[in-house]
């Protein structure tokens, strides 16, 4: 790899990282929000390395050319240009359909872990909290309550039901896990659409035990905007 190519590669890699972390928040499609300062610093360092090398090339500093970087370094153009030109979208229904739903920790759930639910109706709740209320809360506080949840649509295949879904990551998109709530009563919107739904628990199994089905009889479905950080189990907005 010739030195001018190294300059271009380093500068493009730096700009690519800065593009997704400093100028936009596209990096949230790939890693956690906490990585932002590290990514900005990395982009700046790569840009500085590239500019320093450009200066050295311009001044024709002697540089031992005996051991240039191997050809495999060309592959770094792939992520650099991908970040700059065509950042792939966040993971969605395709991945969620393949993932088994996340197993909620069951061992230590006691009654006092569940505070009484607020009286608002519909009650905004996360998919994870809804799952815990349905499968672990023996006081059955969720029974008969109208809840409101936001997530994206994952088709379930048979009987016209579908999954309201959230994907969660703990480090990067390679370790993604899903939380899903099965939805009954309304035809499935297009896969990957972000929706806010209201409804009540769909009876099945004994509420408050692991036999209870994590499912919802839906009354209303409204399309919402995709959140910029889609990899978290957040409450519905507003």
């Amino acid at each position, binding site marked *: 790899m010739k030195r*001018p190519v190294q300059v271009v590669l380093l500068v493009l890699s730096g700009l690519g990282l800065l593009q997704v972390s400093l100028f936009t928040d596209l990096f949230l499609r790939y890693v956690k929000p906490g990585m932002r300062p590290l990514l900005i610093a*990395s982009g700046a360092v790569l840009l500085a390395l590239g500019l320093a090398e450009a200066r050295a090339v311009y001044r024709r500093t002697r540089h031992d050319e005996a*051991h240039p970087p191997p050809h495999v370094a060309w592959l770094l153009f792939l992520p650099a240009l991908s970040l700059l*030109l065509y950042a792939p979208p966040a993971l969605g229904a395709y991945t969620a359909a393949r993932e088994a739903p996340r197993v909620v920790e069951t061992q230590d759930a006691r009654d006092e872990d569940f505070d009484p639910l607020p009286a608002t109706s519909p009650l905004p709740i996360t998919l994870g909290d809804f799952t815990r209320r349905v499968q672990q809360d023996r006081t059955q506080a969720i029974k008969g309550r109208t809840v409101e949840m936001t997530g994206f649509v994952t088709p379930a295949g048979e009987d016209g039901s579908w999954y309201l879904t959230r994907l969660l990551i703990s480090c990067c998109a390679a370790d993604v896990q899903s939380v899903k709530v099965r939805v009954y009563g309304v035809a499935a919107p297009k896969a990957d659409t972000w929706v806010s739904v209201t409804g009540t628990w769909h009876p099945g199994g004994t509420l408050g035990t692991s036999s209870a089905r994590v499912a919802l009889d839906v009354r209303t479905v409204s399309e919402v905007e995709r959140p910029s950080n889609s990899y978290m189990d957040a409450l519905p907005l507003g």
Partner: protein
Amino acid sequence: MQETQDRAQDASAPTMRARPGWPRHWPLLLLGAAVLPGAALYLVGWSAELPAIQAWRTVALSVVVQAVPFMLLGTALSGAINAFVPASVFTRLLPKRPALAVPVAGAAGVVLPGCECASVPVANSLIGRGVTPAAAFAFLLSAPAVNPIVLTSTAIAFPGRPEMVLARLVASLLAACAMGWLWLWLGKEEWLRPAVRHTGHQPGHSRWAEFRSGFQHDFLHAGGFLVVGALAAATFNVAVPPSVVDAFADSAWLSVLFLAALAILLAVCSEADAFVAASLSGFSPVARLTFMVVGPMVDVKLIALQAGTFGRAFAVRFSAATTVVAIVCSVLIGGVLL
């Protein structure tokens, strides 16, 4: 006659004056290098809007994006060791006898925060500075598994089960030291590619220029292999159906071997693998411990990085031996502690 000769000389003169080592139309080639892969990528992107391809690209890119800051840290550190730290420092810090240097270097892994991508270039520069390879390998294996960030995330992933953190620490240190001693016993120098770059500070050169060129070279080198590993990991990530995972959960022995294989193929970074292990709740604690001990020491990304840094002959033997040693250590320690 004289005139034609002169003209011929004139015509050949510009090419003679072109600086050696650069192709003639390098600005054109440069433009091509910048535009063609992008155009190809764009076309591939447009023609393959398939969800599987998109998921594959997202996973591959996210592995690279996640690893780049830690890899920069590692290569900067390796460049700094090469340019600023005299070799005598290491001979003074480490015990003279290699067999004693191994556990000391393994325990020193605690100080390098980050995941496994950072440790390969650092280990390479340590060998270049005269540290015995056995000690450098113990450091290479233990650093990604026992640093405070990784142990903290393990404690968070397994709430109320401190024995999991302890088991991971002990099993990882044991496996790292065992590999160091194994190298002393059976290892051969000729498996290692000669360390060509790490010559240390040369009198008459600027230390900063040496640091910069070493840093840049190591980053481009390791970065290329990181991309290879990320592509492989993304392929397995998208291609392995989840139903396969459940099929192995029932048998005690198969589940240990299966999770070891899964750790190698998925190449989850060591700061996150505890959360993945915690989510594999169908498996026994020993199998999950194996996942967390093998993952930071051997995976497709690391094999690619090691093959690039130390040579293929080394990477194949070392990864195979490490896998076996790591599995044995986690079964032993897991059997006692879990």
